[in-house]
């Protein structure tokens, strides 16, 4: 008797379980990045007691803030269907400029002048890609090199620093606190939430998604495509300017090549956040998760005693697995069908 009921229950529950299995797969596929993040945190927490301490979490957030602020801007550009590889050089340029002008003009003038210059560079990117319709990868690659040169011309190849590091209120952005939390974290998370609201709830945000998803359809529905793309680059430049303020304030000085290589790290976090390089889909808050994943991988591996370069190898694997799962979920099979 007992055995019979058991087998009945077993048979009845089989198809049900399969349905549940599918549901689980689809949830896994949609929220894969969140789940991977949770697993990561759990794994590291098991091996290192310090990992999840409030102190350590704050440290990771503070370290990730600069990459994070830039990633917010790049996410907007990528959702609009383009790339921005010039953000690293731009960060060098803006940081050198704001630090240099700090002593010449004072911080209250240095910040707006630097932001204006950075926005101009963003406008150049935006004009070339938006209005002239040139390939964004190559344009921003060219700009990467050109801005690197501009930075060196501006500084004459010298490193710059701020003379009076203790007495300036400029320190608040990188070293100070706002609302009892380190200010880079406040600025990063505040900017991310703000940009998320812009992208998710305003007409401009919808236009960016539309242009990135299908430019022709967007044009036919009356969206001014060129102007929208232009604005995404201006936003990206603005984010770089903000990152430069944090970086300049934290270091109180700058090398000419301080942002070298940032563009690809930033892009990696955006991709980890699930934003498609094809444009039209993505989410600013998920980029924040991408930033945190990279930040926590770096921190966790260091806490476990691995050399810093091990994180690069792990990042390699994580990026490919994350995007693979995403792609596989969309096509419904693990391996690509191409012969």
């Amino acid at each position, binding site marked *: 008797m007992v055995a019979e009921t058991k087998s009945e229950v077993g048979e009845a529950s089989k198809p049900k379980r399969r349905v549940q299995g599918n549901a689980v797969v689809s949830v896994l596929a949609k929220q894969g990045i969140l789940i991977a993040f949770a697993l990561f945190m759990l794994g590291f927490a098991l091996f290192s007691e310090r990992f999840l301490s409030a102190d350590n979490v704050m440290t990771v957030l503070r370290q990730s803030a600069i990459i994070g602020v830039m990633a917010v801007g790049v996410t907007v550009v990528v959702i609009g269907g383009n790339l921005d590889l010039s953000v690293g050089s731009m960060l060098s340029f803006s940081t050198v400029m704001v630090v240099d002008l700090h002593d010449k003009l004072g911080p209250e003038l240095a910040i707006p002048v630097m932001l204006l210059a950075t926005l101009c560079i963003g406008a150049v990117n935006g004009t070339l890609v938006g209005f002239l319709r040139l390939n964004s990868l190559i344009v921003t690659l060219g700009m990467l090199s050109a801005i690197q040169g501009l930075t060196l011309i501006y500084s004459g190849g010298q490193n710059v620093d701020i003379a009076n590091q203790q007495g300036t209120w400029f320190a608040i952005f990188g070293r100070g606190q706002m609302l009892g939390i380190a200010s880079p974290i406040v600025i990063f998370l505040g900017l991310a939430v703000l940009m998320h609201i812009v992208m998710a709830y305003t007409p401009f945000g919808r236009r960016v998604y539309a242009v990135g998803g299908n430019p022709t359809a967007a044009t036919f529905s009356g969206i001014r*495509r060129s102007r929208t793309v232009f604005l995404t680059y201006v936003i990206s430049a603005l984010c770089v300017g903000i990152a430069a303020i944090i970086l300049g304030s934290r270091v109180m000085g700058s090398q000419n090549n301080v942002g070298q290589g940032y563009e690809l790290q930033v892009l990696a976090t955006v991709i980890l956040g699930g934003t498609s390089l094809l444009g039209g889909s993505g989410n600013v808050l998920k980029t924040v998760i991408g930033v945190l994943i990279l930040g926590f991988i770096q921190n966790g591996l260091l806490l476990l005693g691995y050399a810093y370069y091990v994180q690069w190898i792990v990042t390699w694997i994580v990026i490919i697995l994350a995007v693979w799962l995403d792609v596989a979920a969309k096509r419904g099979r693990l391996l690509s069908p191409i012969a």
Partner: protein
Amino acid sequence: MQTLKTWLIRNPIWGFVVLIFVFFSFANPYFFDLQNFQNILVQTSTIGLIALGMTLVMINGNIDLSVGATVALAASLAIDIQGWEAFANWGNWAILPGVIAGLMSGVILGAVNGLIVWKTGVDAFIVTLGAMLGVRGLVFAYTEEQSFFAMNFAYSDFGASSVAGLPTLAVLFLLFALGTHLLLSGTVHGRNTYAVGGNREAAVNAGIRVGPHMLINFMLVGFFAALAGITLSTQMGAATPNLGREYELWTITAVVLGGTKLTGGSGTIIGTFGGVLAIGILRNGMNLMQVPAFYVLVILGTILIAVLFLDKQLTRGGKEELRT
């Protein structure tokens, strides 16, 4: 005359090469000199070799950002392994296992990239972006952040040697350029490379196996990057873990200057050779004229964008886009 004109329209970069060549010849007394031309060829051979492979991958509709890290890995392997105890009494032959290991590392990394792109369907840009970070990590792990020096001077002598009056490295580059040109224009693999890059759907429908062609091209670019790393290390007699940083950017710049489309399906080795020469002549000429290196960066970036703009104007040919 007519053929020259159509040829120049197809390869505008060569017009530019001639232009800057003439300009620097008149502007600087030291430029027009056989010794200097050899210099330019040797200087460009590193980026040039990688650009050959990159052209194949880009015509195929993919891209490889990991070449810079491969350069460092191959150079480190080649120099480290030739100094191993096991080969201590091999004499100059000890160089051989090092070089083979270096080249193999490039081919294997290329195969890894190619297999991932083929089997997972993840965009090559993302796959190789990850590899660019990861392979650099492998280099640091292998070298433990140390630079290696070649103890055997025969190795660095090779980098300074000449064949029939020409620098060996330049000859090597020219030979491989010719070989790659023949591969692209004269073989089935070359034709299919264009076909796959031009229209993947159509290629599949025509019965072309897309995956193996992509795999082979990734292995080739890995091989060329490794070879470039080895020739670079023979010039210096050393390998540093940071070798080859930003080479991916320079290489892509050269290939795009040469007229290869990022979308795939078109491009030539002749164009790429022009692109590589353009960068080489500009850098060399401006160096001779004592233009600070800063300005060279700005000028190169501007030229890249200008070429892109001109190319778009020239090839649009009546197809007016929707403008809003």
